[in-house]
């Protein structure tokens, strides 16, 4: 069996170079087809990898530097099912983004497609690598490609500011990760995840590695954009071009949580065995706060893009709760939810583009073409997507949400279950409400490209289809998560090449009785909220001076100031470090 582990990274990178060369000589349509071919190749490679790692992980040592005497010397790609699955999701969402780029961006040229490909290469590398420093490099490559794309519309000062905020906040996050890596290296002398974990399991956590843990958590959570690290995302998701926001919402955010999970299970799980309750509680709390606060704000803001930005924050919070349970069951739920929800959110941004909330031309256009096919298609996407967002059991959001709820309840956090049900209901309501208010609005007719909506609707339907199909992979996810969280087997596989025996934790679950009721409850509440009834009642009931005071403060805090964003990042990091320092022994 040939080892194809590095190819999902190599192919998009080579594709990016080829696209840059080709765009000088061939028309744009051909360039787009080139880029699409590279993305599809990545998807196929990731799918083959998933098949190859079905019974045991693949370890690829660059330059043939295999471990000597069970000490890792070289740099490895360590591919397991969850990692390969994340690389596949990255490919799928990138394919959707590349497909709709010509109709949702202003004249995308070869450079844009090249950036999408480097972004995909970085995401794939981040998912597949088994080396901590490698993770940092791919983390930075993701950020750099993404913020170059978010600054694409150089005519809009808002978009430029959004890009700056994105770049500066994420760079601070990357430096926190790098400092964490340096500290871990100083106490273990290793950079390979398995080697660091093996070393720490013997020596236990010293002060340097405890600080490293809090810095790595903070750094990855900045990328995940959970509260209080979410300010950059609110700004960028409002101003960036549709295809980039699709990738941000579909995978990039979730990869921050993936980073937390990967580093926890490979490095910190054994030395933290006695103290894991502190980490668990802190991460569940961060996730629950994100779900509650961002969920509430999502329905209070009226601008559709801002709403969606808060929906993203709330949902990343839900994924984080799943991972934070620190159990195979939680990882499985988080994985299913990440795929089911990521594809739905990517489709939702297509829906917004279809009804004409677009930022591609420097400013928001609220052209309203009541009854045009494009609008009808957009509304259909928003309504289906809104129901999926609330957790309709037809889609994997329902199964993932139910699994995360069950994991949280088993881990002893019943209040987190309440937060998840609430967040799903209000975010679903927020999306449905976009549809119900957009339907009523009227405005001047715009000249449309004939039938530009057909491919967009097709892409959105495929994304919904993938979300629905993901409900069938519950058992696969349970096995995959069992292996993902088997720290010892991971280390043995990397350091001594021993084949991992499938871990005994094959959690079986389905959307069974109590949980499916919670799903349906969320959906029902979302429909009520989406119809606008609840907002009107709340407006009538709550005392208005107090409301407007708090409301002004909330809006001011989210006005896109880079300094504010950096302040919150600092406070959040200090908070994480403080919690860990005071609760760990």
């Amino acid at each position, binding site marked *: 069996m040939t080892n194809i582990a590095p190819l999902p990274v190599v192919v998009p990178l080579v594709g990016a170079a080829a696209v840059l060369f080709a765009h000088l000589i061939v028309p744009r349509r051909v360039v787009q087809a080139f880029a699409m071919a590279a993305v599809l190749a990545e998807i196929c490679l990731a799918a083959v990898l998933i098949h190859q790692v079905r019974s045991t992980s693949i370890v690829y040592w660059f330059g043939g530097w295999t471990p000597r005497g069970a000490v890792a010397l070289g740099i490895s790609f360590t591919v397991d099912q969850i990692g390969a699955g994340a690389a596949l999701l990255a490919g799928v969402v990138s394919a959707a983004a590349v497909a709709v780029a010509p109709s949702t961006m202003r004249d995308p040229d070869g450079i844009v497609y090249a950036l999408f490909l480097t972004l995909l290469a970085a995401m794939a590398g981040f998912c597949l690598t088994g080396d901590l*420093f490698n993770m940092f*490099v791919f983390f*930075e490559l993701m950020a*750099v490609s993404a*913020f*170059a794309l978010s*600054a694409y519309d*150089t*005519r*809009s*000062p*808002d978009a*430029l*500011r959004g*890009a*700056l905020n994105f*770049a*500066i906040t994420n*760079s*601070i996050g*990357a*430096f926190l990760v*790098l*400092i964490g*890596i*340096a*500290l871990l*290296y*100083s106490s273990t002398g290793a*950079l390979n995840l398995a080697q660091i974990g093996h070393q720490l399991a013997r020596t236990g956590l010293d002060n340097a590695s405890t600080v490293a843990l809090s810095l790595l958590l903070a750094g990855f959570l900045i990328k995940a954009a959970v509260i209080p690290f979410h300010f950059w995302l609110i*700004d960028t998701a409002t101003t960036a071009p549709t295809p980039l926001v699709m990738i941000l919402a579909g995978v990039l955010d979730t990869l921050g949580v993936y980073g937390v999970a990967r580093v926890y299970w490979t490095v910190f799980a054994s030395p933290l065995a006695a103290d894991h309750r502190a980490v668990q509680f802190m991460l569940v709390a961060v996730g629950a706060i994100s779900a509650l606060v961002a969920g509430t704000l999502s329905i209070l803001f*009226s*601008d559709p893009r801002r709403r969606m930005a808060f929906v993203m924050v709330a949902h990343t919070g839900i994924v984080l709760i799943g991972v934070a349970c620190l159990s195979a069951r939680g990882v499985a739920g988080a994985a299913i939810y990440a795929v089911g929800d990521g594809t739905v959110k990517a489709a939702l941004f297509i829906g917004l583009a279809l009804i004409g909330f677009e930022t591609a031309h420097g400013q928001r256009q609220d052209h309203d073409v009541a009854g045009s096919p494009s609008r009808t298609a957009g509304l259909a996407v928003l309504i289906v997507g809104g129901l999926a967002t609330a957790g309709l059991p037809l889609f994997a959001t329902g199964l993932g949400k139910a699994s995360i709820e069950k994991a949280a309840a088993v881990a002893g956090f019943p209040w987190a279950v309440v937060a998840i049900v609430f967040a799903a209901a209000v975010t679903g309501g927020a999306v449905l409400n976009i549809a119900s208010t957009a339907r009523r609005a009227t405005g001047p007719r715009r000249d449309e490209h004939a039938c530009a909506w057909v491919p967009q609707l097709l892409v959105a339907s495929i994304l919904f289809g993938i979300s629905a199909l993901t409900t069938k992979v519950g058992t696969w996810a349970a096995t995959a998560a069992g292996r993902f969280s088997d720290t010892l087997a991971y280390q043995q596989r990397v350091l001594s090449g021993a084949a991992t025996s499938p871990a005994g934790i094959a959690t079986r679950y389905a959307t069974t009785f109590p949980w499916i009721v919670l799903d349906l409850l969320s959906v029902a509440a979302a429909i009520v909220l989406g119809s606008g009834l609840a907002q009107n009642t709340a407006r009538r009931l709550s005392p208005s001076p107090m409301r407007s005071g708090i409301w*002004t403060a909330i*809006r*001011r805090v*989210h*006005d*896109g*100031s*880079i*300094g504010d964003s*950096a*302040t919150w990042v*600092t406070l959040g990091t200090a908070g994480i470090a403080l919690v860990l320092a005071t609760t760990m022994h």
Partner: protein
Amino acid sequence: MNLLPFGVALWLFVVGLYGIVTSRNLLHQIISLSVVQASTYVLLLAVGYRTGGAAPVFADIPTSRATVDPIVQALTLTDVVVGATVSALLLAVAVQIHKRTGTLDPENLRRRPES
């Protein structure tokens, strides 16, 4: 172990972060980010320093000779490359902002309030 380099790294990090938070000029803000990044260079090199160690080039010294850690030097080099990319992109964005709005003050770039 000499704590001075770690103190310097911490100082650079904090002072750079302070610059980012309080700055009223985008160029100053971007350079502050570079200062934050400089703290990671110092930290990495400090982690790999061995007292009395030679440079890790074995062309003209016996392989038994103690050297400083070459791995962190490679990491620092990678980090410098990353930093150059980030700074270049950010400065390009700042130039565009100045072109469009005629200002580099982040306060003037705040989003207009909306409901």
